[in-house]
């Protein structure tokens, strides 16, 4: 039998990286992602283990921090999402299970969720068409995290930089529905897209 290598397929069947005046959209590919939740009574020990391994403080409110190439996103009380580029076959589930053994439950999310990056001066205006929270820079700034819904699709979103750049993560099977909404929102906001 011939050797075969499995190649990951994008969950977005129609969404290509798009750049328009004021907004750019890009599905993120090739990342490794794992969620982890502190064990009962293990929260402080878990925070210490992450601090020692990655030099960052796990956020206790809806924020993100970056340490050693890993983005840690607050995912609810005592829960986080860790995301990194899958370079050199990096696998966060394996890595975190070693680092926080006995302190937290670690679950791979790499194939379960997709991430879309939305950036540019019009990003807020476009996202505000479907996200029911206040995205004004005074309220939702760099490193802010929100778990909410966009066009009725559950999303975890965070702001990466002041461009502003946002990333939204959702369950993989919603990728096309979300992309459909996003492109409609862009078309009704950006004159060049219509």
């Amino acid at each position, binding site marked *: 039998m011939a050797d075969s290598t499995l190649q990951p397929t994008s969950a977005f069947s129609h969404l290509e990286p798009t750049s328009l005046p004021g907004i750019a959209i890009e599905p993120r590919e090739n990342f490794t992602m794992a969620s982890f939740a502190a064990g009962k009574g293990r929260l402080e020990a878990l925070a210490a283990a992450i601090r020692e391994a990655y030099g960052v403080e796990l956020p206790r409110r*809806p924020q993100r921090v970056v340490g050693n190439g890993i983005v840690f996103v607050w995912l609810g*009380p005592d829960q986080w999402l860790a995301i990194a580029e899958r370079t050199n076959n990096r696998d966060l589930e394996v890595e975190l299970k070693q680092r926080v053994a006995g302190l937290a439950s670690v679950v791979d999310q790499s194939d379960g969720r997709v991430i879309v990056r939305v950036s540019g001066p019009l990003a807020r205006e476009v996202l505000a068409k479907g996200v029911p929270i206040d995205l004004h820079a005074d309220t939702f700034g760099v490193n802010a995290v929100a778990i909410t819904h966009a066009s009725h699709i559950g999303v975890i979103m965070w702001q990466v930089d002041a461009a502003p750049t946002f990333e939204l993560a959702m369950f993989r099977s919603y990728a096309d529905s979300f992309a459909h909404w996003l492109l409609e929102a862009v078309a009704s906001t950006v004159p060049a897209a219509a």
Partner: protein
Amino acid sequence: MRIACPYCGERSLDEYLYSGDATVRRPDFASPTAQADFVKYVYERKNSPGQHRELWYHAAGCHAWLVVTRDVSTHIITAVEPAKDVALGTASSMKDTA
């Protein structure tokens, strides 16, 4: 109606699920009076006007269980606390009365 999640901030009602009275406690099924206790637990509710303590679940948000103190006549919410803190007796409303 909007509920201020202690973790996420103020969010619209559509992110939450109402999950009933936060003051009732599930009876012991092994008790000799279990049948009567469960009838009382499941069916006998006062449904009075005024302030209620209610369980709400932040389903489309951080998945936290909350105890919301709400006046069912006016919808005015006077407290939102993590249900975990209420169960452990560490909620701020409990410290006040301790």
